[in-house]
């Protein structure tokens, strides 16, 4: 059965890499799936049906396009980073400006799609998990826009290190619930959001913020984020008359990366590089690099690469960036890594901090610490690449929320 999301894309080929997942929600027959308690299974099946119907309904797409244009502010520009390119002396660096979206990150692309779906499904209460608070702010924003009840679960540690976003969410009318279980980060917030959902199924929609969780979330979030890659393709064609050569994006759960990668999966000439948060270093034991240092397992409804110990207990992730501080990754990334279609690398906390400053100083763009990981790797490889190489780095969010964290690491008292 053809996937309507792919029908409007001329790029889908018979043996396309863009057909996944299968009916069970598996990517490559192995990753993804629906590993949830029975109470949630009927809801996931209902969601799947509702999403398929929405995808096939031109009215839904039209409504989404309207909000993406007039409320989110799409399309986001593809910016040629002239000074950074000159300073690094290599590949031509372009920046996909997702930080210019309303609420300051790519998160709103997905949230807008899902809130319209939740409305179609007649749900009135939204729950969501958040790490850095970007997804929480985006969710609280659309709940304000549509007058819906909103409960955001956020790890207590993250509440502490992302105070401005917590205040934003509360201003927007959301209830922010700090989660003290575990290390009080994104993983624990995800557990608590799932517990809320299972207890409030009648009126509640679980608005997942990344390309992870049980099927159909990974595919649905990817579809809503694919607008990033589709625009990039058109914009690069308009500016350079061809496809980019390299695309670099940061990976926590992996939604901004999946969004910019997916429209290029069948363009074999385009190198796709996902940058995980290496934390203190890939082998330091304090990392969030699930693909590079994890192994496949099952958590939060899907099978994917996870940071875990020999007994299958999930390890705490570490990253300077709250948005990347997660011991798993979207299942489609796990598959793309296994088949070698995308490369997965790491950038450390320190490298991200340097890239944060480089981008700010040379381009006048303060990137989110999450996006700074992508910039760090782009800055590392750009000098090694020929000048005609077209490199796109996805600036998934803006860094205003991170200035306190950055100041602290730089030893500056605000």
């Amino acid at each position: 059965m053809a996937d309507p999301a792919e029908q409007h894309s001329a790029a889908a080929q018979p043996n396309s890499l863009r057909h996944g997942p299968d009916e069970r929600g598996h990517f490559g027959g192995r990753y993804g799936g629906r590993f949830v308690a029975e109470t949630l299974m009927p809801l996931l099946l209902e969601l799947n049906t509702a999403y398929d119907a929405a995808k096939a309904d031109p009215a839904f797409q039209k409504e989404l396009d309207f909000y993406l244009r007039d409320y989110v502010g799409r399309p986001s520009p593809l910016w040629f980073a002239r000074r950074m390119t000159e300073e690094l002396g290599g590949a031509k660096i372009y920046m996909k400006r997702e930080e210019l979206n309303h609420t300051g990150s790519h998160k709103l692309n997905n949230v807008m799609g899902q809130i319209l779906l939740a409305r179609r499904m007649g749900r009135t209460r939204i729950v969501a998990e958040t790490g850095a608070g970007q997804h929480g702010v985006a969710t609280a924003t659309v709940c304000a826009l549509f007058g819906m009840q909103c409960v955001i679960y956020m790890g207590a540690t993250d509440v502490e290190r992302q105070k401005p976003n917590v205040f934003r969410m509360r201003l927007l009318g959301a209830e922010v619930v700090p989660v003290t279980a575990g290390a009080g980060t994104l993983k624990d917030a995800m557990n608590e959001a799932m517990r809320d959902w299972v207890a409030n199924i009648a009126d509640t929609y679980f608005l997942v913020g990344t390309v992870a969780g049980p099927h159909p979330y990974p595919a649905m979030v990817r579809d809503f984020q694919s607008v990033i890659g589709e625009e990039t393709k058109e914009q690069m064609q308009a500016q350079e008359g061809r496809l980019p050569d390299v695309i670099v994006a940061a990976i926590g759960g992996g939604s901004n990366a999946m969004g910019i990668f997916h429209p290029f999966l069948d363009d074999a000439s385009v190198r796709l590089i996902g940058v995980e948060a290496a934390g203190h270093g890939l082998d330091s034991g304090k990392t969030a690099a699930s693909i590079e240092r994890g192994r496949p397992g099952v958590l939060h409804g899907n099978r994917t690469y996870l940071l875990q110990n020999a007994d299958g207990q999930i390890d705490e992730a570490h990253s300077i960036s709250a948005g990347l501080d997660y011991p798993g990754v979207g299942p489609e990334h796990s598959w793309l890594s296994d088949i070698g279609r995308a490369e997965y690398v790491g950038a450390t906390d320190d490298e991200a901090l340097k890239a944060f400053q480089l981008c700010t100083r040379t381009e006048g763009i303060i990137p989110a610490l999450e996006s700074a990981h992508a910039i760090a790797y782009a800055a590392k490889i750009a000098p090694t690449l020929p000048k005609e190489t077209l490199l796109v780095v996805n600036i998934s969010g803006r860094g205003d929320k991170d200035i306190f964290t950055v100041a602290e690491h730089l030893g500056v008292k605000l």
Partner: protein
Amino acid sequence: MSRIAARFKTLAAQGRGALIPYLEAFDPDLETSLALLKAMPAAGADLIEVGMPFSDPSADGPVIQLAARRGLKAGATLPGVLKMIAAFREQDQETPVILMGYLNPVEAYGHARFCTDAAKAGVDGLILVDLPPEEADILEQPAQDAGLDIIRLVAPTTSDERLRYVLSHASGFVYYVSITGITGTRTASAEALQEALPRLRAATDLPVAIGFGIRTPEQAATAAGIADGAVVASALLSTLADTLDAEGKATDQTLPRVLNQIKDLAAAVRAGEKKAG
């Protein structure tokens, strides 16, 4: 006949339902939880559920979350849990033991190897909360080969059509999650349970146990009377947690208080009359 089938048959002949208490392995330490496991049958446990601690128990409420954390802190691993069951089996050949937990530790152990080793240790059935029948192919054959039952959870949200599908993958008994929610929070009313049972009976010949939100002897008697068994978990774990000292260590109150609670539950279940359901 498996231990589970034999036990339910015996109880049916006696005209009463089963009391199925739960304990978390290694909570608060191996010695205490093994002593508790060994003493449970004499206190009135008909079947026993043993929780396998997991770092991210996303279907469980705060009480089981804390118990799992204590178990992990005390060094719980799957090999350790299986050793504990084997030690129990040295003295008790009849009381069925069901392991309950999440898939990932089992996956890390290896699906087939786990089933083989669990059966060898004396485990009778598995409940894996996050393994719906849609994904269960990885475990069904190895479990069947090892002679382990896969006990299926069904919920109020499970439609009649889906019920037939889920139960076609069930063995041992059926675990009816009586509320929509996490463990140890809400309690279903007797009326709601009365209404739910005919739907389940129509879809399966397997015994039905009710769990989630059963706390008091009265509630246990009601559930075991309406269905074929009542699972009590969070209420026992709360009691255990109350007896721990400031460092979270067991005290001389730990075993007696939990066992007395099981005795009270068992007395109520045994006094209760089995209703036609």
